[in-house]
C-alpha cells in the first residue's frame, strides 16, 4: 500500500474511532490536542487497524504516538 493511501485509510479509521470529521484530520494532527480522545477510543482504533489493515499494533505503542503521522509510521512498519 502506498504511503498516501495508508495515510488516508488511517485517517478514516481515526475519524470513525474518535467520532470526528475525516476532512479535519491531517497527518500533523495530534492525539493530545486535536483529537482529545480517551483510552477507550484508542482501543477502538487499534481494533479497527487490526480489522481493516490486518496489523496488530500494541496499544501502548499506539498510545505513545504524538501525531497521526507517528501512527502511520507504526502501522507501516507492521505491514
Amino acid at each position: 500500500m502506498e504511503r498516501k493511501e495508508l495515510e488516508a485509510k488511517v485517517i478514516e479509521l481515526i475519524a470513525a474511532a474518535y467520532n470526528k470529521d475525516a476532512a479535519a484530520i491531517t497527518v500533523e494532527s495530534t492525539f493530545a490536542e486535536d483529537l482529545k480522545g480517551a483510552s477507550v477510543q484508542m482501543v477502538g482504533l487499534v481494533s479497527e487497524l487490526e480489522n481493516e489493515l490486518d496489523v496488530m499494533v500494541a496499544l501502548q505503542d499506539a498510545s505513545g504516538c504524538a501525531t497521526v503521522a507517528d501512527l502511520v509510521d507504526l502501522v507501516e512498519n507492521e505491514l
Partner: protein
Amino acid sequence: MSVLDEIYTRAKADPQRVAFPEATNEKMLQAAYEAGQEGYIIPILVGGKAQIEALVREKGYDLSVLTIVDIHDEEYKNKVIDAYVNLPDTRLKAKALGRRMEDPLYFAMAMQAVDEADVTFAGIDNTTGDVLLAGQMIIGLKPGITTVSSIGLADIPGYEGSEGSLLAVGDSAVCTNPDPEQLASIAISACDTVHELLGWEPRCAMVSYSTLGSGQGPLIDKVTEALKIANEKRPDLAIDGEFQLDAAIVPAVAEKKVKRESKVAGKANVLIWPDLNVGNTAVKLIQQFGHADAYGPMLQGFNKVVCDCSRGAPVSEIKGNVVISAVRAAGAKK
C-alpha cells in the same frame, strides 16, 4: 457472619462459570480447583489441554471438578468466533479475533462474551494493562460508561455506618485523574457493583474538600460537573454531592452542613474520590489507622465481570477474589 462469609454463602447458592486463562500457573490452578471443589464456582481452565492436564495430574487434583477448554480445538474456537461476530457492537472481526484467541486471555474473554462463561479471572501472569486492554477489546464497556475503574470494599472495625462496618470506596486503583465524564462513570459503575455484589441500595457520595459550595475552584467544579453528568445519565441512582467525607457518612455533620433534602448525605455507603491521589491515600489511611480489611480492587465498567488479581497474591486472596467476582456475575444477571 463476616462480609466475606456472606459472599461465600451466596456464591455456593448459585455457582457461576469462571474462566481461568492462566491455568498453568500453579497458584491460579490451586485457587480455581479449591473454589470449584468447595462448590463456590464452576471452574473452566482455558489453555493448552495437554499442559493443563499434566499439571492437574501432577497436583493430584480430581479432574472431574474441572472443565478444560483447549485453545487448539479449532471446531470450538470457530463456534465461539461465529457467535462473537454476530453479537451487536463487537470490535473485532473474525480474522482478527481468531488471531487474538491464540492467547488464552482473549480466548477466555471471547467465551465470556458469547455466554460460555460468566467471569474471566486473570492477572497473575498477565499485567493489569493486558487484562484491561483485552477486556475493553473483547468484552467492551457498559453503555454510557467511558472508563474502566475500580472499587474496593473496606470492613472497618468500630465504624458504624449505614451498612455497619462496611464502606465501598473508589476509584483507588485504576483511573488516575478522571475528567468529569469519567468521574461520573466511576460513580455509576460503583453503584452497580455494590448492588450486584452485596444487594445494597447504593447511596453514593461524590467526595470533595467542599460541601455544597462551601469552597470554590476548579477541583470542586470537576466534582459538581461529574455529579451533574451522573444524575443525568442515571436518574434512578442516589448519587449526590459534593460532600466532604464527614458530611457524606456522619448524620450529625450532614444535618449541619447539608441544608437540603438528600438521600445520601450522612448515610453514604459508597464514596467516590475525585482522583487517584486522594483514593490511594484514603485507602492507606483506612488500612493504617482504621485497621480495616480491604477487599478488591474490583474492576468495573465492563459489560461483564472481568477480574484482575495482584501478581503477588497468595492463593487465599486469589480464591477470595474469584468468589467475589462470581457473586458479582450472579448479581448482574438478576
